[in-house]
């Protein structure tokens, strides 16, 4: 953060009920507040009306193919890490109308909806998720083409980030370069200090964030000691991280396109596409043309797609990637290697969702290691 930004930004330490005040202040400012909620046994991102909607004192236990929530007294509002949802579902919705056509005299007329951007406030955005947004920013503004809908939604969204005080069991953001400390890209940043004296350090990172933070009542201005305490929280989370993505992953993947290990992954992979659906950066989509039975109207919808389906690579005569080995190779090679060529960054933030939500617990970090270790690399 630059000195100028620091001087105009507000930093306050507020008691825990300041979180509720913050959410309500955002709602009053016209934002639809979206945040973590417990839904069907998992933390998902849904509209929240107050702090009472948040998963207070809930901790998630995650592993390859497992996710469980359990109560943990005094853990705080943000003791859980990431669940199956990511913010991409709001910035890049799973289903979007591209255009409508209606039959007209001797033909048809096409009409595209104006990109609508509701004012959304995202509450509880992790460092890895901010990183994911920055990655998708590059995807949807690729130098030649820009997705106007994405751009409008992204510009309208207000980000209330939160520093992670705890590492999830499948997290590896430190080695992937995604966190756990939020550095920039936020409007408001929260660091939670749970326990008997439950407080939040609230920092503003933009003018619109500062307006909200300055209006918060109670608490006190933050000092150096508070910032150091926040640093200790994220340092502890970083230290507790159990998994690591190999730094030479791009080379390992590029040099092992014909490795026998792909077949061994394919024997475990169910091609269910879960990893691509939960991934906060996966962006592939397909289009669905829907036509009214009487032919009077037609619509094109863009929906999330996955490189794990055989249809994905279909050209006349059949699919290019017929086998599961080729499809898994496509996914992981794209994510960790080709992404660099395409967007100048890795496609992985180290959030660990693909490991947790893989029904058979395939671990992206382990697969890279296996490819490197099996002697395929020269």
């Amino acid at each position, binding site marked *: 953060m630059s000195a100028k930004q620091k001087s105009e930004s507000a930093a306050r330490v507020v008691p825990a009920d300041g979180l509720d005040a913050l959410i309500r202040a955002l709602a009053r400012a016209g934002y639809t507040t979206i945040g973590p909620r417990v839904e069907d046994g998992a933390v998902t991102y849904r509209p929240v009306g107050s702090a009472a909607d948040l998963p207070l004192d809930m901790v998630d236990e995650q592993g390859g193919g497992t996710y469980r929530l359990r109560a943990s007294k005094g853990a705080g509002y943000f003791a859980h890490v990431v669940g199956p949802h990511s913010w991409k579902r709001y910035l890049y919705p799973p289903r979007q109308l591209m255009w409508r056509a209606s039959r007209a005299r001797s033909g048809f007329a096409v009409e595209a909806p104006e990109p609508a951007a509701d004012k959304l406030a995202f509450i509880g955005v992790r460092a890895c998720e901010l990183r994911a947004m920055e990655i998708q920013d590059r995807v949807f503004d*690729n130098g*030649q083409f820009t997705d106007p809908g994405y751009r409008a939604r992204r510009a309208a969204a207000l980000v209330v980030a939160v520093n992670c005080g705890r590492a999830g069991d499948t997290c590896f953001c430190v080695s992937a370069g995604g966190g756990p400390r939020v550095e920039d890209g936020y409007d408001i940043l929260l660091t939670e200090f749970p326990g008997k004296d439950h407080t939040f350090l609230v920092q503003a990172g933009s003018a619109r964030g500062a307006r909200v933070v300055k209006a918060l009542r109670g608490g006190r201005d933050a000092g150096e000691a508070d910032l150091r305490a926040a640093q200790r929280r994220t340092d502890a989370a970083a230290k507790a991280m159990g998994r690591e993505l190999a730094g030479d992953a791009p080379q390992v993947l590029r040099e092992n396109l014909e490795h026998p290990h792909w077949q061994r992954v394919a024997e475990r992979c169910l091609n269910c596409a879960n990893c691509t659906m939960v991934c906060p950066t996966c962006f592939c989509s397909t*289009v669905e043309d829907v036509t009214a039975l009487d032919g009077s109207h037609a619509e094109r919808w863009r929906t999330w797609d996955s490189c794990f389906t055989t249809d994905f*690579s279909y050209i*006349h005569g059949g699919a290019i*990637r017929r086998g599961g080995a080729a499809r898994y190779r496509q996914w992981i090679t794209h994510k960790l290697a080709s992404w660099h060529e395409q967007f100048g960054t890795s496609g992985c933030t180290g959030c660990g969702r693909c490991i947790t939500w893989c029904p058979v617990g395939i671990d992206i970090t382990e697969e890279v290691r296996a490819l490197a270790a099996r002697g395929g690399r020269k």
Partner: protein
Amino acid sequence: MPATAATAATALPADPMVPVPYRITRVARELSDTFTVDLVPARGKAPFRFAPGQFNMLYVYGVGEVPISISGDPADGARVRHTIRAVGTVTDALRRLKKGAMVGLRGPFGTPWPLDLTEGCDVLIIGGGVGLAPLRPAIYEVLNNRDRYGKVCLFYGARTPDDILFRGELEKWRGRFDMFVDVTVDRATGRWAGPVGVVTQLIRRGGFDAYHACALVCGPEVMMRFAVPTLNEIGVANDRIFVSMERNMKCAVGFCGHCQFGGAFVCKDGPVFRYDTISKLFNVREL
């Protein structure tokens, strides 16, 4: 103005995701499964500019959308010409459309054949099957500016004599004194008296200067896989070979991810690639 056609063509459509209505002004049957349609904008008369090798997304109302190479003359801004083989739902529906029908068009998209780079060179045009369609605008452009190029050779392979695309034009080009044209078939039928076998066999017969030649290759991937080593053998280096790739496409603007070929999006980084930039990936199966 053929000279400006290639450069002006890179201007992008207003909203590249929304089809613009075009009307079919002519339908011509080429082969049993292949046909050519001419399109003009349903409203307005803005000339359509494209560069040889580029493609459009064609939408059939209520059916769907497919990527189709432009097969017409880039100097002809009045109509957009596509030559299409009916191989699926949308292309079958396109085949059933008659003169006067409306289609949606998005484009042009993709990288062109590098006809400015090949100036001064001998130009080898190597096509297989319907792969001749995306090469035809390059042939027009080269012939429109014939004095800018060295020898011009067209090598074309089809499955049978009945599958030879643009047969009339091939005969006309073959009659020119400034162009070498040779055609082969996989399987001879009827009164075919020409060469039989793969198109790579023809390449050695053009009498061109391999060290100052550029090759434009478009056809089934397997045909391109054989054409490249043959070109290398006679002395055409990988950085003087250009191939047109085909992959599944939904958006044509690099958002949908379907057309990825290694780190490239075939829709915007291709379809025309300089071969040395993809040589490492070209022979990897199921990529």
